[in-house]
């Protein structure tokens, strides 16, 4: 029964993807991309990936749609229909599709418990998590403890993207123009829309509480630093959309955002340095406390906090950079 639902959802994603590529109006394409992300999140949930579904919904359908719309507001809105290299593209795609399609017949069927991917390290994760880490969400245990170096790299990637965006469009004036006084260019927000203001006034505190819940409950249920950071950024973005960009910059000033972005990554690295100073390897949480599970959980909570702070700071800094950019 659930296979039929999976097949239905996946067919919908294919249809939506075709519509994204074919849409002439870029606004339509971006909105369809949001729908595509949400359908993928549902497909992930049906494939038992709860954390991934939460992240895809929060980051893919939420934040990335907002960022693409902000970029669209600064650029064109319609695509000029000039297709290039049409014939070559069709041939290349057909050949590649045929080759990969032929290769899929060698794959084990979906859900086969004897597939090679489930054999070597995967059973160990459950037994070691049970003995040494003791948290129910094995995905967070792997993310925070087993593959902690990967997550550190990921936090640095997020920070680097934030730095890059701030370098590119962090100022308010497009290049070559004298920066106009932003007093007369205030983006006013949507305060005069009564329903939006009332609902946002009620929703924003709950979104923030939910962000903190996801952050700290990430060891017992789907959640963790990335989703929490994205949710927190979404709350402030909603505030900025309703109250105007100027007020949202006052709520969390850009200096605080930069401190958050760098501070979270520094916190993560600091945990590693502290473990080294206490005699272990980099990010070896075992040396933080005598009790193994307490030490691991302390380490995971600290680094997840670092991840959440960095992601929230970077996403908000990127949003402010796009929103404050004057139109050329």
């Amino acid at each position, binding site marked *: 029964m659930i296979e039929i639902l999976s097949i239905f959802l996946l067919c919908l994603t294919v249809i939506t993807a075709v519509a994204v590529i074919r849409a002439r109006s870029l606004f339509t394409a971006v909105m369809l991309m949001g729908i595509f992300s949400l359908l993928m999140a549902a497909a992930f949930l049906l494939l038992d990936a709860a954390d991934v579904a939460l992240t895809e919904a929060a980051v893919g359908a939420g934040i990335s749609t907002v960022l*693409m719309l902000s970029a669209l507001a600064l650029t064109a809105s319609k695509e000029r229909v000039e297709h290039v290299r049409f014939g*070559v*593209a069709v041939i290349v795609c057909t050949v590649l599709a045929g080759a990969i399609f032929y290769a899929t017949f060698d794959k084990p069927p979906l859900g086969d418990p004897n597939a090679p991917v489930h054999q070597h390290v995967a059973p160990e994760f459950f037994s070691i998590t049970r003995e040494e880490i003791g948290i129910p969400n094995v995905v967070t245990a792997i*993310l925070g403890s087993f593959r902690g170096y990967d997550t550190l790299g990921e936090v640095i990637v997020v920070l680097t993207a934030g730095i890059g965006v701030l370098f590119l469009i962090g100022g308010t004036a497009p290049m070559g123009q004298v920066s106009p006084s932003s007093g007369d260019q205030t983006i006013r927000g949507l305060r005069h829309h009564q329903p939006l203001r009332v609902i946002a006034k009620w929703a924003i505190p709950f979104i923030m509480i939910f962000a903190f819940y996801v952050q700290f409950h990430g060891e017992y249920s789907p959640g963790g630093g990335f989703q929490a950071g994205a949710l927190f950024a979404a709350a402030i973005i909603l505030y900025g959309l309703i109250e105007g960009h100027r007020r949202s910059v006052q709520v969390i000033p850009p200096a605080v955002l930069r401190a958050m972005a760098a501070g979270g990554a520094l916190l993560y690295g600091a945990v590693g340095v502290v473990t080294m100073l206490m005699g272990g390897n980099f990010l070896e949480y075992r040396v933080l406390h005598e009790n193994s599970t307490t030490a691991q959980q302390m380490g995971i909570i600290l680094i997840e906090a670092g991840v959440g702070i960095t992601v929230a700071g970077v996403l908000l800094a990127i949003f402010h950079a796009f929103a404050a950019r004057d139109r050329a």
Partner: protein
Amino acid sequence: MSALTDLFHYWVFVVLLMIGFYGVMTRSNLMKKLLGLSIFQSAVFLLFISMGKVEGGTAPIVLDGNWDATFSNPLPQVLILTAIVVGISTLALGLALVVRIKEAYGRIDDIDAPEAES
């Protein structure tokens, strides 16, 4: 019927991969290229997550201390979690570049086409 449900996710992966790739190749508008790239990335995520599924399993979160239930493989999910966040980071950087290109060239279609610089 069983072949359809066994391998359907991988076939959808192929189709989505090619749709995204086709979008990046044939569309000259930069935003469309970024959207095609996003679709391409999502197809790869689908491949990994469907490889991790175990039949009769559940999400790899232990409920009520029952460590012996059948769980789906958590490792591909961790990898894809990282990949989603990296994907949106590159998307943000790409969007910033598109904004700067628009300001420099005045358009985001056909930026390779020779045109008299104003």
